[in-house]
């Protein structure tokens, strides 16, 4: 990966740093709980005591967005890592072993690719039920497919090259060939793909939670904060606009970094 545009990457890294410190460092200084209900202060506008205002149950919006950001970001990173790992491994295995195993994996991939957009993750989340870990599983399955395809295509490309044959003649095991010869060729590509797909994972999580199939209230996530806030569009604009802005900034940060890299 080469850096194409230095200004863009600094802007992106700055936004990512901002989003991270907002979600992970802020709670050490801002000690108000995102769960404590205060019905006397429903839908209050941003003020000194509650910098982002409060929601329909009087919960502090700043604390809720910080908590939601923590959930979204950590979930996206876990999903990215898991799908990178399983996708790369399964793809290279499938390409290396070939035969019936490859055929079966290809069919399974075709099957999963038949569901457009968020629908696959939505179906899995609906079957498993909501919640943090089920959402991780649903999004990981949905994101592994693309990584697996890339890894398999790369494996097929280098599988018949001379250095692999030489390595086989010298008595290398399949394990050694996959870890020592395939991974160094595949990982840069699947890694950059996974990094570029972080914003879409953040968006899928927010979308699923918005629909009501992801993180379930009372646990806040960016998606369900916006979903609850949109019923108060006329009285309390801040309930949708501030979390929307936060979501936008986090996606923009990762997109700027992705934009400035040339794989």
């Amino acid at each position, binding site marked *: 990966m080469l850096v194409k545009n230095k200004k863009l990457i600094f802007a992106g890294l700055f936004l990512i740093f901002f989003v991270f410190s907002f979600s992970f460092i802020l709670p050490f200084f801002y000690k108000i709980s995102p769960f404590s209900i205060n019905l006397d202060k429903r839908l209050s506008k941003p003020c000194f005591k509650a910098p982002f205002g409060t929601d329909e149950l009087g919960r502090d919006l700043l604390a809720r967005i910080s908590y939601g950001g923590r959930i979204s970001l950590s979930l996206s990173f876990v999903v990215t890592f898991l799908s990178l790992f399983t996708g790369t491994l399964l793809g290279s295995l499938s390409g290396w072993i070939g035969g019936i195993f490859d055929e079966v994996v290809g*069919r399974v991939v*075709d*099957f999963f*690719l*038949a*569901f*457009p*957009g*968020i*629908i696959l993750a*939505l*179906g899995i989340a*609906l*079957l498993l039920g909501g919640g943090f870990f089920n959402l991780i599983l649903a999004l990981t399955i949905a994101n592994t497919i693309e990584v697996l395809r890339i890894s398999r295509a790369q494996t097929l490309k280098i599988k018949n090259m001379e250095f692999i044959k030489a390595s086989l003649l010298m008595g290398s095991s399949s394990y050694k060939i996959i870890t020592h010869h395939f991974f160094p060729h595949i990982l840069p590509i699947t890694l950059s793909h996974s990094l570029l797909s972080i*914003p*879409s994972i953040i*968006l*899928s999580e*927010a*979308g699923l939670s*918005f*629909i*009501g*199939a992801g993180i379930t209230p009372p646990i806040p996530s960016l*998606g369900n904060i*916006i*979903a609850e*806030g*949109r019923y108060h*569009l*006329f009285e309390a*604009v801040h309930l*949708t*606009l501030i979390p*929307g*802005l936060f*979501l*936008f900034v986090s*996606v*923009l940060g990762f*997109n*700027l970094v992705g*934009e400035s890299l040339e794989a």
Partner: protein
Amino acid sequence: MIVDLVKKRIINSLFTVFAVSFTGILILSLLPGTPEEAKIGERAHPFQGESPSFISKYWNFLRNFPERALGNSLVSGRRVIDEVLDAFPYSFLLALFSVLLSLAISIPIGIFTALNKEKTVDTLILAISVFFNSLPVISLGPLLAVIFSVRLGILPVSGLDGFKSIILPSLTLSIPFSAYLIRIIRKSLLEELKKGYILSIRARGVRNIRIVIFHALRNSIFSIITVVNLRIGNLITGAILTESMFSFPGVGRLLVRSVAGRDYNLAFGIMILSSLIYVFLTLITDISYAILDPRIRYACKE
């Protein structure tokens, strides 16, 4: 050979259709409650009576396709297929309108940036388009609603009020999409302008704007469509979220409602139908590429 390629694609798609419908029916038959018993009020115990075997269920699905194949909604008691057919025209209108709007925005701007390559205007438009391309649907939707409905009061926030109510949802879909399209159009135009035939046209003294519109754009259409195809999943996700945000009565809102109400029959029915249509459409586009694009056609013949 091109015929072999098409045959292989058709067989693959048929297999996928089979796998999707098979799994769908398997899931539906594992869920408690049969569609026939599921009318509200007279809902029988899920495991009461003799339930048909899975094989006979799948046979029923095939025999009754499409009218009664997917059973009834657990909430309204109507057939899934009827519910979807009622909502489909709205989704279709929204999709058509948003795509036309995005093209109307992005083609002129894309051509403009390609003509002014690497000037300040070009860089500025590119920067703005990165910005707009990152706008999530669920951030942009409320923002537009606040501007146009709450502050200005000219467009309805939700519901169905003639032509007016399609404007906000389609703007929500088109703004990020046209930002994306501008960059694709610019990139493929610049790629095309480097080629030899453009130089020969230019040598004949044809004006630059004419070259871009009548020659470069025409030849880069296929590469643009290929890239846009990759975004279809993204657009469908966006449509689902937008429809439910603006209470636009399309298939997306129906899906979200069925998920929220845990109406599994309707939800999985919509998912099965949409994936079948999606597989069918992908197949058609793939085949039409092979037939329409002379480059692919000749590559296959060799």
